[in-house]
């Protein structure tokens, strides 16, 4: 069975193809069943392959399968080949597992939508490309998946393309990602030029063995990381993700929280040999991650759209993953990726459930008191919020702690401090959400006759499952004071990624954990004071420090700056080119050549007299001339 692992991406791919071709003719029931079972089959196969992998003796290579030769050009050859090693298994299980739950959730969430089949076709297509991305055995094929998920992201952000905001957000996501992808391609080209190939094993080995010069390693690592900042929404290319919330909420959960946006982290871990070989590049990764983690967290403090808060929170949490990668704790970064996939998709889906219950309301100022109305959504949201805040014994606590410990152990105290401060902010904005949504007075503006109702079971069951994982997923990677062997996850990944930082004393680690816990509790306590005990405090604070408040609400005016510095000059330049080149040169050449043809026609017009004898004469003269040539 495990040899069939190469079918993992192909099953959702085939399903997507069927849905694209025949979706309009199929019944909704059939569409839902087909889309879900395709992902379910992929999940089963991933699980089988995973079990196979775990049973292999240590040091044995993972599964590989070459499907067909793809490019063969001079010294460069690339084939479509899939690989399934320990790192891939983690991603494949997350993508298909969380993906399956979100597919199931979507069957109910999208039940009223006109374009049901199109939605599931795109969702299946996304699963296909994401699995290609994680299972590719070289960088070129990974790039195919990388672009494919970008395409699906665009399609699904703009799913309700009748809404101008959604169409615009999709375009923004696509264009911003192009910027990163340009750097990504240049990085790949540098590697192809210097290595002749792009298989991950070859790259990691070449970087470690010194085959590539250290300058080149740094250059390539940074170029690829710029690509990652686009896909994973890090500074400076994060601006598309908040807007991407225009898409349906399950899409936000799957693509813009759990899977696609973490592709950058996966890429860095996949090339951990490359990044570990370059200290400057790793430093850049870590500091960009830390800056993003703090920056996005401050923005999440003042957003009123619940999905926007979660979007900034996602950006911030991915920043944490990059801190882990940057300080050499790749396994910790992956660990946070996994736990984040669970609790963040849980939070998004629960938020979707709230939005569903309130008939589309997303502004938390018009919520409140929902705790009584949503007996399932409320506890699971609370679990997700506790997990992401880093409350002890929930998954987020362990994974965030692994990253912070990695930073501390690596001597990066500033990064550790930034992470700790981020923890306070995270807990604060999450519990601001909780208090605003579920506690206090009911501020809903529902029209009479529409009562707030809990979501159907197809939505609540995935929520409960995700909540269970959000609680339990942390126990696969326990910190060191549970014993040397407690970090199952780190030991499991040891064969795939560079293993981490030097160990630190158990007592030090205990202190770190204590500090992290205290800062999380501090954040929650602050949120309690601000939004539960004295709800007037936030507005008083806002009027006390109007500058800071306006800066945050204005999102540091980054969008405006980009607009002024990049977008508008580009648009104006494009307009100039349109006027000067398009209209004058291209259209001009076309019109002139058409006019020339017309003129030539007019000039030759007299030849066509319509008289048979004229034609015959021309014919005769021609024949005589020809004969003359022949004879003389």
């Amino acid at each position, binding site marked *: 069975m495990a040899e069939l692992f190469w079918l993992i991406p192909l099953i959702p791919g085939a399903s997507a193809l069927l849905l694209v071709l025949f979706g309009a003719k199929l019944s909704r029931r059939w569409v839902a069943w087909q889309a879900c079972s395709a992902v379910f089959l992929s999940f089963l196969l991933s699980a089988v392959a995973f079990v196979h992998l775990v049973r292999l003796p240590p040091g044995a290579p993972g599964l590989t399968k070459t499907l067909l030769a793809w490019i063969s050009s001079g010294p460069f050859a690339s084939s479509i080949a899939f690989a399934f090693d320990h790192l891939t298994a983690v991603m494949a299980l997350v993508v298909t597992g969380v993906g399956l739950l979100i597919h199931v959730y979507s069957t109910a969430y999208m039940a009223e939508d006109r374009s049901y089949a199109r939605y599931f076709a795109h969702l299946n297509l996304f699963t296909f490309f994401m699995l290609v991305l994680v299972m590719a055995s070289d960088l070129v094929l990974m790039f195919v998946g990388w672009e494919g998920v970008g395409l699906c992201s665009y399609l699904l952000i703009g799913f309700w393309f009748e809404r101008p905001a959604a169409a615009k957000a999709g375009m923004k996501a696509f264009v911003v990602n192009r910027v990163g992808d340009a750097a990504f391609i240049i990085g790949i080209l540098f590697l192809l030029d210097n290595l002749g190939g792009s298989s991950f094993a070859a790259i990691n080995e070449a970087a470690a063995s010194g085959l590539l010069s250290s300058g080149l390693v740094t250059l390539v690592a940074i170029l690829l990381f710029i690509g990652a900042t686009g896909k994973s929404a890090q500074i400076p290319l994060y601006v598309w993700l908040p807007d991407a919330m225009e898409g349906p909420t399950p899409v936000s959960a799957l693509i813009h929280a759990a899977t696609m946006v973490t592709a950058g982290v996966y890429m860095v871990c996949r090339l951990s040999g490359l990044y570990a070989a370059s200290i400057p590049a790793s430093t850049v990764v870590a500091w960009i991650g830390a800056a993003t983690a703090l920056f996005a967290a401050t923005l999440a403090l003042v957003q009123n759209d619940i999905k926007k808060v979660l979007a900034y929170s996602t950006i911030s949490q991915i920043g944490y993953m990059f801190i882990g990668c940057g300080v050499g704790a790749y396994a910790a970064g992956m660990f946070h990726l996994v736990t984040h996939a669970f609790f963040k998709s849980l939070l998004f889906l629960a938020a979707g459930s709230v939005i569903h219950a309130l008939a589309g309301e997303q502004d938390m100022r018009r919520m409140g008191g929902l705790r009584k109305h949503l007996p399932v959504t409320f506890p699971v949201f609370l679990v997700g919020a506790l997990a992401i805040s880093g409350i002890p014994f929930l998954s987020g606590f362990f994974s965030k702690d692994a990253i912070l410990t990695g930073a501390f152990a690596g001597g990066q105290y500033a990064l550790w401090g930034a992470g700790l401060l981020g923890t306070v902010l995270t807990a604060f904005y999450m519990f601001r959400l909780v208090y605003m949504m579920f506690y206090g007075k009911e501020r809903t503006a529902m029209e009479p006759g529409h009562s707030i109702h809990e979501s159907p079971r197809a939505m609540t069951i995935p929520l409960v499952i995700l909540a269970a994982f959000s609680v339990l997923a942390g126990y696969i990677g326990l910190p060191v004071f549970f014993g040397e062997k407690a970090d199952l996850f780190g030991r499991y990944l040891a064969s795939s990624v560079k293993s981490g930082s030097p160990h630190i004393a158990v007592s030090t680690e205990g202190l770190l954990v204590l500090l992290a816990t205290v800062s999380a509790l501090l954040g929650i306590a602050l949120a309690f004071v601000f939004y539960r005990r004295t709800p007037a405090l936030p507005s008083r604070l806002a009027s006390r420090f109007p500058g800071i408040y306006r800066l945050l609400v204005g999102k540091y005016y980054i969008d405006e700056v980009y607009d002024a510095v990049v977008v508008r000059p580009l648009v104006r330049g494009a307009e100039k080119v349109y006027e000067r080149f398009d209209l004058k040169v291209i259209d001009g050449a076309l019109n002139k050549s058409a006019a020339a043809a017309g003129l030539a026609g007019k000039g030759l017009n007299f030849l066509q007299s*319509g008289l*048979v004898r004229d034609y015959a004469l021309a014919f005769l003269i021609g024949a005589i001339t020809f004969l003359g040539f022949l004879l003389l």
Partner: protein
Amino acid sequence: MIPPAAFFILAAVLFVLGVLAFFVKKDLLTQFMAVEVMLNAGNLAFLALAKSLGKAEGQVIVLFVITVAAAEAVIGLAIIVLIFRQRKTVQTDELKDLKG
């Protein structure tokens, strides 16, 4: 025995007569007949060559040409009749709708 050159001269004379008739005459029917004359001038040249070279191919070609000419005459005459029905004339100078 008539020398082959005589046949060629006759064929050439016939051909030139056909060409002249085609240009001098202005009604379709006569012009059509001129074309037939040219065609048969060609036939005659073929036959003369076949005889003087002692080969059969020339005669075969003539047979083909006669067959094709018969078919062509049928179609050509039919077209002329149809044109006459439409326009009540077969003067080529009046049939110049294709003037550019």
